[in-house]
């Protein structure tokens, strides 16, 4: 086992874990906002995929990575608008609409990819920001502290979300919208508006996550490239009980298990790819079996709010 703990292995694992973990982190952070507000957003996978496709195209055609990220955010919010109008405004079934959005986004991005990106273009390497000093730490410094600017922005978002949940009125409103929407309504705050903002924020973060996956992670867009990441993010948000710092822990752990294949190859250990592929999902199931009873869900999660109904 000694060859497992070599420097190259650890570097590959941690760097890869960060690369795969950041999209998960963004999506899970978004999901925890909408779950807090009482909207179970099953369409997250679709938001990530469309964000990935549009983000990649934006970066490809404009030549600027930032345009790509902005486009990805826009695409995620575009999908979220459907969720907000149909589920929050009209009170339709969140699960049916969520599955519909995911299926439609899967099919649409695959069609667009097949019709437009026939040349299978790739983006060049992205510009990384290296933090002076910290990146000099031996072994892991280089791989951890030399990242794309979005990664640092993501960490900022985690802290912002934590602060939002913990010490702002908006955070309190979000929580009330998920736990006791009638109380929020009685307090004179619109449940529909609160939930709409939450869903749009989820779309933005999911879209950004998808764009990161395509632009920085893969450098290209492939149909179905999220491969269940949206659903894993939903589980992370559930298990983290919508606490941002636990979302970080969960996303990085799952990200690392996603990247184990590469790291094991670096250490020249041969494990069947199918075993590695199912590790993140297996990890989720094991965690659910062990801590299932502690998974927190808001009382009104998944229920549309109808004023005056009991």
């Amino acid at each position, binding site marked *: 086992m000694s060859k497992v703990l070599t420097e190259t292995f650890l570097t590959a694992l941690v760097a890869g874990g960060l690369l795969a973990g950041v999209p998960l982190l963004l999506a899970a952070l978004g999901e925890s906002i909408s779950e807090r507000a009482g909207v179970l957003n099953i369409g997250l996978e679709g938001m990530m995929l469309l964000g990935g496709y549009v983000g990649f195209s934006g970066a490809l055609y404009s030549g600027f990575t930032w345009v790509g990220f902005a486009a990805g955010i826009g695409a995620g919010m575009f999908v979220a608008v459907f969720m907000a109008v149909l589920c929050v*405004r009209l009170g339709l079934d969140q699960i049916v609409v969520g*599955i*519909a959005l995911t299926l439609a986004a899967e*099919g649409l991005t695959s069609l667009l990819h*097949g019709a437009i990106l026939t040349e299978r273009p790739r983006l060049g390497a992205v510009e990384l920001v290296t933090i002076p000093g910290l990146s000099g730490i031996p072994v892991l410094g280089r791989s951890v502290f030399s990242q794309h600017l979005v990664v640092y922005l993501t960490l900022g978002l985690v802290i912002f979300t934590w602060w939002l949940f913990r010490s702002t009125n908006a955070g309190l409103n979000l929580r009330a919208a998920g736990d006791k929407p009638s109380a929020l309504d009685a307090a004179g705050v619109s449940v529909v508006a609160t939930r709409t903002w939450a869903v749009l924020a989820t779309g933005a973060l999911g879209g950004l996550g998808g764009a990161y996956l395509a632009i920085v992670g893969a450098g290209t867009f492939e*149909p179905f490239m999220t491969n269940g990441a949206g659903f894993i993010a939903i589980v992370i948000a559930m298990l983290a009980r919508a606490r941002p710092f636990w979302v970080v822990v969960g996303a990085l752990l799952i990200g690392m298990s996603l990247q184990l294949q590469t790291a094991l190859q670096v250490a020249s250990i041969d494990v069947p790819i199918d*075993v590695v592929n199912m590790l993140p999902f297996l990890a989720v*199931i094991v965690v659910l079996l062990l801590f299932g009873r502690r998974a927190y869900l808001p009382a009104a999660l998944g229920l549309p709010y109808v004023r005056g109904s009991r």
Partner: protein
Amino acid sequence: MSDVAATAEHTVAAGRAGRFAALGDAGIRSVGPIVLALVAGAAILLALGRNPIEFYGDIVEGGITRTTGLQDSVTRMAPLLLIAAALVVVFRANIWNLGIDGQFLLAAAMVAGVGRDLDRALPNGLALGLLWLLAAAVGAVWTIVPAFLKARYQVNEIITTLMMTFIGINVANLFIKGPFRDFESTNVPQTSVLPVEQRLPDIPGTSIHVGIVVALVACVLVHFVMTRTAFGLRLNVLGANPRAATHFGLSVPRLVMVSFAVSGAVIGLAGAAEILGVWGYVRADWNPAFGLIVVPLVFLARLNAIAVIPFVALLAVLSIGGDLAARRADLPNDFLLVLVGLILLFMAVTEYLGRRRALGASYLTEGLVAALRRRKRP
């Protein structure tokens, strides 16, 4: 006397008219979303620079009018119908088993893995029967974890069944590349091939295997169980109101486990039908992904295992004909996913409009109505 007769006639007529109205209403709600989705799909095709009329024409040609088109479509119906029947059972209990692909693939892999050896050791009929049972058992076993988590800890089964699907696909691949691998065949790992004459027999005069008969019987059976038996009633009560089910003295956890297992078993049968009837083997990374595309049909059929049959027929035609159409239009064969997603969306919206009308309210949302009223009064 004539008064009574007239009244009776009137009542009958009114009842008939009411029933027709209800049927028409249900028809609109079921067919409307499909029509709307096809129109929206045509718009997407236009935007991609393809001719939608040609595309839909190719679907009809490939799925119906081509020499083998109709037979291929009916053959494709067998697994789809079994999946639909399985989903009726759980959806009636308001349980979301979305782990269809995992249960289907694992059952298919197991059947293909042991199929030829079992067939050599036993008489053909007995072997096929055992393989159906094996598939059902495998499908049922794969639901245990999500069912347990749901029954015991109320963990959301949508998430867990999806996770189990991802795991199941990989486990199936592990088996195909490992113990079930047939090294005599091609370079791509695959199981041994069940000889064509040992597979499910065809319906005489056609190339349609008898799996479709099994599937139709399963639909009738599921419909009977869900509407005419105590078990069906219990599941319906559970689906309508879990708290009421508890007050009735029903064991909710046990019902959850059982309905999950039944649906998994029937989905396993779908895997058996596809392998024993059509393929005879499973190649690594094979995944027809029937699961989520059947879900909207079950809702369109209002969770009725008989009513789902025409919808499945339509889906089979779209799926078989879609291959040809996509090839001719030089597009990936994922248009079906878009169509199914759109059907689901329009279904939800139609449902909403119908509900509004039933309540005697307007089609417009409260906010829009308020806005319009405000404008009228200057």
